[in-house]
């Protein structure tokens, strides 16, 4: 909603500057997003009197005349019918400027004023018109406002007799103005009108609202007063000549009130320039005087109105009804629209002539040939018009108001106001009374405001008079009821239904700034769930291990899933799908963190990082039989390339299997996960020979390893890449809180063994055997591995160190030697492993 400042001031004159007024409105909830100084762009335009006119020597239809512009004379060529001696008109002398074309369409914030004027304004030059030098131009309203030529049938501006010549046009026409650009929240539909904003301004400033006389009967400021004016009979119409219109409400659930008003013998034309300027400032395009009058009345009151050409309505009947299958309409914008089933339409005897509350039809619109007008003012069901608008993808100024609900008592007053505006410009005779049908009695809405509850919610005591005063200034009427307030709600305040709504009215007009903070006075011992604590513990460990935490999108696309190479029946290949994704890339809920991390690696590779380690803790999603998908917390780590480059004193560190295994081991150790084992070979996207499952006490926690070359190729990763992922709940179940273990008091004995083993034997098999057989073993570590000469083909040499110790004594050499002998024997028997 855009509110032209001077228009607003007609209803409530602010005691403050534009900026301060905007600020004060914002602080009561009428959010003013921008204050735009819409200074008139034309420069040097003046009034001028036509002194004499002659036919153009070359061109019939054109005239040459002299104009007097405050002492200077100019020869001007024009084809306008109004270009006649004695007339005072608008004139652009050579060197003056017209607004740049189309400048009315955009408006920027106040600070950007400089960018909006200047080079693009159109400079008027003396020019040759078919052999006659025209020193400037006489102007139509459209040229003054838009820089574009006159519209069909538009004459030059003609000012009242006696207007002096040489007056600056912007001052004379009062074109300079400010616009308050409102960004209204959905509950502020009562400010979708200049008068609505004026009421708020009045409540802040105490300056009363002044309404045009025609609207004085409108009950909006006096909910306790009469809800309606005028003839109440639904069958009522005027007595007189011409077609009669009967209104039939076929679907009163969607339209319970429809008022039509006939104006006869109007003269077609354009609106006065000041009206057009205001419409522009309010963000609407002037069309013609008839349409403009309905728009002007809508902006003023918030009640949308529509003008039909009465003579184009067939059959003397207006039916307000649901659309029928197959019906369509050509709307004002020239588009053929199939009407969605159940759309509310206005129809004549032939068919739909308007989509109710959204847009009128082309066939019955007012045009140059219009003599008689049928004005519509109605109340339509917000839900119905909104649904139709969504189905059609068509939003209009009328719809924006109807979908929130307009004042159910405003129809008669507002149709009278529009009729008044029409006759003022276009002449014609409004017929008394209305074509009207009504199927409801607008309810009187009353709410009791419990002052103690108000004080409890707001946290401070409140004078009853103060509360009453605020409500009254906003148009509520208030009566005392057993110490509480019985409040009648103005019908236009469709947002106010219950007590809390009234509390908000009071609070916002008291000013939120008047509420001083008050500490919470009850002590609570807060609870942080174990999972949340555990996540932070994970994060701390991972930070110690050197990677960067990342946050990636939880939405992914079919390409991400396909790139992983999962089997078709793998749950990860069957993600939850969005019904209305923005793009295919973000159409699925992720089933794994790995695709996001691989993309993250690729991003860093693009930035020329030699190596990257990143990790994430986040939710993954799986379809479930329940109503809602399964959400699982996952941890994943990804490493790529050279993690620390070769330096002058150390070899490079690469993101290979053993790097990731070391990282994972450290992490699990830190978390207190015991009995960790690995099982070779994880599925896609891992390298089959360089990956494993990670288990604790036989329970799978996750997988790790290097990445399958086919997957790497899809992500353009050309160096070693390793991944790991864990189910956080599984990890948590296996983690133990640290507990004190006695520090060993007796010395430990370390013994090394070097053995020759079959090449395919895993080191883990040796470790398992040693751990099983050796008494007092407290540590096992492989420290060397060798293949090739002098070790025979098909064999490898493995060296490992074992640490022995007892909690209660020093082990003797003999004891340890016995253990070693047992190990050597078992290794040979079971694994074909011999001492080197």
């Amino acid at each position, binding site marked *: 909603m855009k509110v032209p400042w001077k228009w607003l001031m007609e209803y409530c004159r602010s005691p403050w500057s534009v900026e301060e007024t905007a600020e004060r409105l914002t602080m009561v909830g009428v959010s003013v997003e921008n204050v735009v100084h819409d200074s008139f762009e034309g420069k040097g335009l003046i009034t001028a009197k036509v002194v004499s006119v002659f036919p153009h020597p070359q061109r019939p239809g054109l005239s040459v005349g002299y104009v007097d512009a405050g002492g200077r004379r100019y020869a001007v060529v024009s084809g306008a019918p109004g270009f006649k001696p004695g007339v005072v008109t608008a004139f652009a002398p050579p060197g003056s400027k017209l607004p740049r074309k189309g400048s009315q369409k955009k408006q920027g914030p106040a600070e950007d004023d400089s960018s909006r004027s200047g080079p693009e304004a159109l400079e008027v030059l003396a020019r040759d018109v078919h052999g006659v030098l025209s020193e400037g131009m006489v102007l139509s309203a459209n040229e003054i406002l838009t820089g574009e030529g006159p519209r069909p049938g538009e004459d030059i501006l003609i000012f009242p007799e006696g207007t002096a010549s040489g007056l600056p046009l912007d001052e004379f026409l009062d074109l300079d103005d400010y616009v308050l650009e409102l960004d209204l929240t959905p509950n502020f539909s009562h400010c979708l009108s200049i008068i609505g904003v004026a009421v708020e301004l009045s409540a802040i400033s105490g300056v009363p609202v002044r309404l045009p006389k025609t609207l004085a009967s409108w009950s909006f400021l006096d909910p306790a007063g009469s809800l309606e004016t005028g003839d109440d009979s639904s069958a009522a119409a005027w007595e007189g000549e011409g077609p009669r219109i009967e209104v039939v409400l076929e679907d009163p659930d969607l339209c319970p009130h429809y008022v039509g008003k006939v104006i006869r013998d109007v003269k077609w034309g354009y609106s006065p320039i000041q009206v057009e300027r205001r419409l522009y400032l309010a963000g609407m395009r002037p069309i013609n005087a008839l349409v403009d009058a309905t728009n002007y009345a809508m902006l003023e009151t918030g009640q949308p109105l529509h003008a039909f050409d009465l003579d184009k309505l067939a059959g003397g009947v207006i039916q307000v009804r649901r659309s029928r299958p197959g019906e369509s309409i050509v709307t004002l914008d020239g588009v053929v629209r199939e009407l969605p089933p159940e759309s509310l339409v206005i129809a004549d005897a032939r068919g739909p002539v308007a989509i109710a509350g959204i847009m009128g039809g082309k066939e019955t619109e007012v045009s140059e040939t219009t003599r008689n007008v049928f004005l519509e003012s109605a109340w339509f069901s917000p839900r119905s018009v909104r649904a139709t608008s969504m189905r059609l993808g068509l939003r209009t100024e009328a719809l924006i108001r109807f979908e929130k609900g307009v004042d159910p008592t405003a129809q008669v007053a507002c149709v009278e106001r529009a009729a008044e505006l029409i006759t003022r410009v276009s002449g014609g005779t409004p017929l008394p009374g209305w074509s009207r049908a009504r199927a409801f009695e607008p309810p009187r809405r009353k709410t009791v405001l419990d002052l103690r509850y108000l004080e409890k919610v707001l946290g401070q005591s409140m004078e009853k008079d103060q509360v009453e005063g605020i409500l009254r200034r906003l148009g509520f009427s208030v009566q005392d009821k057993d110490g509480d307030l019985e409040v009648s709600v103005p019908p236009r305040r469709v947002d106010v239904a219950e007590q809390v709504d009234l509390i908000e009215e009071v609070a916002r007009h008291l000013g939120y700034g008047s509420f001083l903070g008050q500490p919470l006075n*009850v002590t609570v011992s807060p609870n942080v769930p174990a999972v949340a604590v555990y996540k932070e513990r994970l994060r701390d460990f991972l930070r110690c291990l050197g990677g960067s935490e990342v946050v990636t*999108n939880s939405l992914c696309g079919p390409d991400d899933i396909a790139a992983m190479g999962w089997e078709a029946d793998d749950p990860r290949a069957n993600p939850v799908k969005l019904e209305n994704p923005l793009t295919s890339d973000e159409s699925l809920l992720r089933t794994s963190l790995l695709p996001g991390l691989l993309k993250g690696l690729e991003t860093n590779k693009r930035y020329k990082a030699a190596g990257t380690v990143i990790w994430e803790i986040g939710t993954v999603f799986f379809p479930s039989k329940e109503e809602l998908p399964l959400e699982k917390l996952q941890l994943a780590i990804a490493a790529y390339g050279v993690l620390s480059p070769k330096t002058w004193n150390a070899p490079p560190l690469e993101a290979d299997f053993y790097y990731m295994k070391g990282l994972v081991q450290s992490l699990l150790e830190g978390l207190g996960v015991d009995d960790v084992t690995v099982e070779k070979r994880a599925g896609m996207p891992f390298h089959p020979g360089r990956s494993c499952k990670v288990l604790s006490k036989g329970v799978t926690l996750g997988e790790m390893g290097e990445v399958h070359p086919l997957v790497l190729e899809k992500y353009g990763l050309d160096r070693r890449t390793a991944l790991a992922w864990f189910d956080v709940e599984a990890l948590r179940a296996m983690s133990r809180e640290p507990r004190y273990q006695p520090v060993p008091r007796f010395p430990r004995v370390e013994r090394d063994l070097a053995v020759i083993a079959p090449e395919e034997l895993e080191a883990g098999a040796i470790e398992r055997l040693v751990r099983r057989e050796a008494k007092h073993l407290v540590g096992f570590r492989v420290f060397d591995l060798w293949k090739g000469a002098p070790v025979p083909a098909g064999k490898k040499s493995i060296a490992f160190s074992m640490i022995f110790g007892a909690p209660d004594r020093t082990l003797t050499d003999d004891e340890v030697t016995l253990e070693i002998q047992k190990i050597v024997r078992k290794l040979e028997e079971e694994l074909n492993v011999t001492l080197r």
Partner: protein
Amino acid sequence: MDENKGSLSAPAMSLLGEIGKMEQSALTELETISSEQELEQFRTRYLGRKGLLTAVLRRLGELPQEERPVVGQRANALRQKLEEEITHRDEALRREALARSLEREQLDVTLPGIPFRRGTLHPLTLALRQILDIFVGMGFSVFESREVETDEMNFVFLNVPPGHPARDMQATFYVNPEVVLRTQTSPGQIRGMRTYEGRLPVRFIVPGRVYRRDPADVSHHPVFHQIEGIAVDRDISFRNLVWVLEEFARKFFGPDTRIRLRPSYFPFTEPSAEMEVSCTICRGKGCSVCKYSGWLEVAGAGMVHPVVLRNGGYDPDEVTGFAFGMGLERLTMLKLGIDDIRLFYSCDTRFLRQFA
């Protein structure tokens, strides 16, 4: 000793003379010694079992009984002196050797050290930890809620029935007509409240991911994070809300931060407010970040709507409550001066490693 000299026999005098000469030559020699090995040889030569001084002592037997102590004392004095000198010399030699070795072991200290890889937490994690600390300090528990929600939880229970215009305020991703990706952490209000089963006071925050169907740009991302907070008790007031928001703003943005509340609209609170803080960039003077207003919107807040209280299992006639919600990304951006929300989701370590 000296007064007896005159009466000493010739052999005794001779021995004493030898001892005197030996002392002189030994001390001279000692000064030329430059290694521990030489020093050891020196010691052996003079003090060893077959050393020169020992030889002198052996000859004591040749002297008359009464002269032996005099010469013996003299010899022992020399032995003691030489031992002391050797010790001194030894210490000096060790000092020199250490100095030489320190000299030899010098490094080029300008060469780089071993590359330790420092890990980093995400800036959103760092900010969230700080925010949680602040609210937990004010007695708020932490409640984590699901990301995929029923339409009912995300909208209906929060006083946004189907067809409500407020649904336009949030572009929603649907899984099916009844299931949405939560557009706000507010459904956590209902789920969280229900876990209290009517007990008072209710006071918790809900951090988490939310989803809006908005294309990504500098200030929008289809996935982002919110922190929701709610407090319900017999006499929670709007002024308590003001206090909590003020406390938060001062602790998060700094003690000089001012806050401003202005009326706004959320279906699940009434009265509703938009919370603004004095601009963290220009300190309220006006800049492009605050659009020259001096204020930055950081949170929505208000008194919990009776409908929401009822849906959470509380009687609005008995209790009141406040709630607030804020965007984690926005708070973090304002605090750290980050100008593009997409950076958070970029995985770009050039960005991420700035915030250890």
